[in-house]
């Protein structure tokens, strides 16, 4: 079946969040998802780091304010770690 608009939106949001955190917060690209270790979801942890940096409410969830910041035009240098 064609994806429902909500599910499609969700997929788009997840892709935005993932690529933002990979580009700017050193979220490792998940090459072997079946090996995912237990413990906090790395994406949620990185999301909290990004929310703390921007002075947003630290929820670990891609709420509206967080998505609004992610959509803003910005510098390509990561906010954490080195850029060499």
């Amino acid at each position: 079946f064609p994806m429902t608009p909500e599910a499609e939106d969700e997929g788009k949001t997840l892709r935005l969040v993932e690529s933002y955190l990979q580009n700017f917060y050193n979220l490792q690209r998940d090459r072997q998802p079946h090996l995912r270790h237990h413990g906090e979801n790395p994406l949620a942890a990185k999301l909290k780091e990004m929310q703390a940096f921007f002075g947003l409410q630290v929820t670990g969830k891609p709420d509206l304010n967080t998505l609004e910041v992610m959509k803003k035009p910005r510098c390509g240098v990561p906010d954490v770690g080195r850029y060499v």
Partner: protein
Amino acid sequence: FTAGNPKWKRNNLTYRILNYTPKMRQADVEEAIQKALSVWSNVTPLTFQKVENKEADIMISFAYRDHRDNSPFDGPNGQLAHAFQPGEGIGGDVHLDDEEFWTKDGRGYNLFIVAAHELGHSLGLSHSNDPGALMYPTYSYTDPKEFLLPQDDINGIQAIYGKSNAAVQPTGPTTPQACDPNLTFDAITTLRGEIIFFKDRYMLRKHPERAETELNFISLLWPKLPSGIQAAYENIERDEVLFFKESKYWVLRGYDIAPGYPKPIYHLGFPKTVKRVNAAYSDETTGKTYFFIADRYWRYDENKKSMDHGYPKKIASNFGKIGRVDAVFQKDGYVYFFHGTTQFQFDPRAKRIVKKTRSISWFNC
């Protein structure tokens, strides 16, 4: 600071502009880059010399999508540019996404602002989480003519390269903190149920239903407005907000500045001796607007669109001992006067001050 604290070992650096964007005149690109470099040389011992046809410390170029540095650009918007920390080869280089709409004004993305930010990286700075800092990661427009390097960025770059050689050390604007007990305001107005506090180039937005206060640049919502708004009031009847700076005023209709503004304040009936307005509020029930200037106030009839006779009068004669008025607004029948860090709640029916509090009492500190 960038991890590992990379820095240039010399203060006299060289730069080269490898290519140009077709969206701007070459001379405008060069002027923007020079101005961007002087942002940093003005506050440190660093100097920048332009070179041609040879390797420079900082190579500046416009690039497209994958440009062989493992960091492809993503087309219009999104990532605007990037730069590399000090070092040999690609170290210090600045890459600007050539699919952006580069300009020398407020349209598209201002090349000067973005270049100045990236050069901060070229010199060893990383991103700042101060929303007012030049090294804040997201783009925000400031009129280049009004640009002052914020104190947060001055502190950062001087921690790496030391102070400027100038006799008088340069200082920069700081970002207002809502719960700073010393916070004072340039102007305050209501706007469709919200309260907007103006300070320098910022606005602090307080929505009655939300606990936190939102800090934005004035230019983010209203690029046509200057920073340093001195007075503002809402005419609820007409759903308009008027902004005042020096001898000019602007009208906001809905969420946009109305065409044909700014206009001289003398169109409202002020004498030429009046050079600026300190504060203003409009009484929705009477249709009268009160303008506060120095120790006097004028009263304007919104229906007749003219100043009432018998004004100006002494502020103290009608509003009591509140001194000069920095900012004022009316809400739920009370008038709130701000003088420095003090706020007076005035009851216009009883004609007396009923409460005195701190200026930041609206921010749930």
